[in-house]
């Protein structure tokens, strides 16, 4: 996006070193090293339980880590002075189950963060929310309550809620996994548009064709570690790690690839 930065050393949006996370005795992440550069779209794939969601939640401090180091925009998160809610004002996350606030209508779901966490005036926040809703074809749903929307609409609203905070990084945690097949496309279209607009994103997904389209880099996670990290073309045409080969074979046999 920014031509001046070409050639200069960019500060990566995400840089993790040896990130390890345990739940009781179970180690969910083992020494994960990951770098996301500005405007990159990095996709995490892998079987359920491979640690994709946990990694995303560690990055915006919804989970604590047991070892290793995470820096966002060059800022080390292990610093005592770093507060979770301040990090999350810059890092949006969208969940698998939408998690919209059922007691607020669509517009208020979107404006809550900007108004309360960022201190934007309600009027400005509403204007911005309306223009975002318009952009994603949800303008007429502004006054509806989440329970009255379809799953696809709810998830699009959840994405709008996240980007209304103007995040510098957007984390998408299997955003289509809870949707009926016919609703997946409308949500993926939104994500594609965001990718084209230059949003830096880290996406956990089971939609392989989508991952192939949209990613600058794909990380295959297995047993809590990044088994393989390649461009989409390389990963899908020439997987090296036997676990990746096995995973892709399973998907092909299931007709998902």
């Amino acid at each position: 996006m920014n031509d001046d930065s070409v050639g200069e050393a960019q500060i990566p949006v995400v840089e993790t070193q040896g990130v390890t996370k345990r739940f009781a005795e179970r180690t969910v992440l083992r020494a994960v090293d990951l770098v996301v550069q500005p405007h990159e779209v990095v996709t995490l794939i892998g079987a359920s339980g491979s640690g994709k969601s946990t990694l995303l939640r560690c990055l915006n401090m919804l989970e604590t880590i047991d070892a290793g180091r995470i820096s966002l925009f060059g800022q080390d998160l292990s610093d005592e002075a770093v507060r979770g809610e301040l990090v999350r004002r810059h890092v949006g996350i969208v969940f698998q189950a939408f998690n919209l606030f059922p007691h607020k209508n669509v517009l208020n779901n979107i404006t809550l963060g900007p108004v309360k966490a960022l201190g934007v005036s309600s009027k400005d926040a509403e204007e911005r929310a309306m223009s975002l809703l318009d952009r994603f074809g949800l303008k007429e749903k502004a006054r509806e309550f989440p329970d009255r929307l379809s799953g696809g609409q709810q998830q699009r609203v959840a994405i709008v809620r996240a980007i209304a905070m103007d995040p510098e990084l957007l984390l998408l945690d299997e955003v289509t996994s809870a949707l009926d097949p016919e609703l997946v496309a409308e949500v993926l279209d939104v994500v594609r548009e965001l990718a084209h607009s230059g949003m830096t994103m880290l996406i956990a997904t089971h939609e392989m064709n989508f991952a192939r389209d949209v990613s600058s880099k794909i990380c295959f996670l297995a047993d809590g570690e990044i088994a393989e990290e390649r461009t989409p073309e390389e990963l899908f045409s020439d997987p090296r790690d036997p676990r990746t080969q096995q995973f892709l074979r399973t998907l092909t046999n299931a007709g998902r690839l």
Partner: protein
Amino acid sequence: MESSGTEIISVKVASSEATSRVLTKRRSALWRAAQQAPRALSVISVVTILVLVVLAFIFAPGARAFQETFFNLHQLRETVFGDPSLNIPPIWGAFAKNIELFMVAEPIILILALGVALIRNATSPLMAGPRVLCTIYVDIARGLPLILVVQAVFFGFPALALPFVSSRTWFQYGLFCLVFCYTAYVSEVYRAGVMSVPNSQLLAGRAIGLTEGQLLRHVTVPQAVRVVVAPLINDFVSLQKDTAIISVGAGVIELLRQVEINEQIWFTDTPFVIAGILFLIVCVPLTRLADALLARDVRTRLAGGTRPTSRRRWRARASAEEIAQVVGA
């Protein structure tokens, strides 16, 4: 063989289709009748029950004695409006005591119970001590019948001869008993409300950068309150009725105490009927309010108001099409 088999099957299928079509037709006619029936049905059933009750009152073998004891018009009038010659005051004064107990106790309970609930829900290790104390208190206060607490307080507190505790008025003792017992119940209602908010909501709130305080204020409490309003009003109703239990403490002349005094004059149950009616007048609107609030909440969130009508319309249209098909065939 094979062909005849399939024929039989196809005949069977055809006949079952025909039956089901007829059945759907009949069902849809029934359905439409049922749609219009409820109002008429409910009117009929209510009227029937009322008539039966009135008939029982009039024609029961002991009807005369019953009316004399429970619905003695003369005593009804004297109980309500008072009779200086018998030294009976109008009932309003005594009933006002119940209302006063209720009105003063309720806000205190709401505030104290919130404190107890928050302490019991706190996770910080610093709060471990208060948490245990609150748990013990709730267990005891919920386990003890109010009537025993009243006995203990009204006879025990004065006997203690402590400077502050033993010199309170009877009204304040009554108030203490109600607050002691009901704070425990209401704190549990609050706790249930807060715990009913799913963790995913807290995650969503944190995800947009809210602080823990903002999370409580904008995400947890608004959702908890919706869950809690109806059960809270339930507890209000129960509290309003239980103000009568203060009568066993004897010091406060509230409604039940007053009608007991009246009963000692005539040895009939008519004064109790008055007490019952007065409690109903206050409590029934409260229960209606609880129901209305619940219904309103369901409506705004699920838009349930529009659903039944649209379903009904769909049913009617579908059956019209089916009828057209049957007629056409």
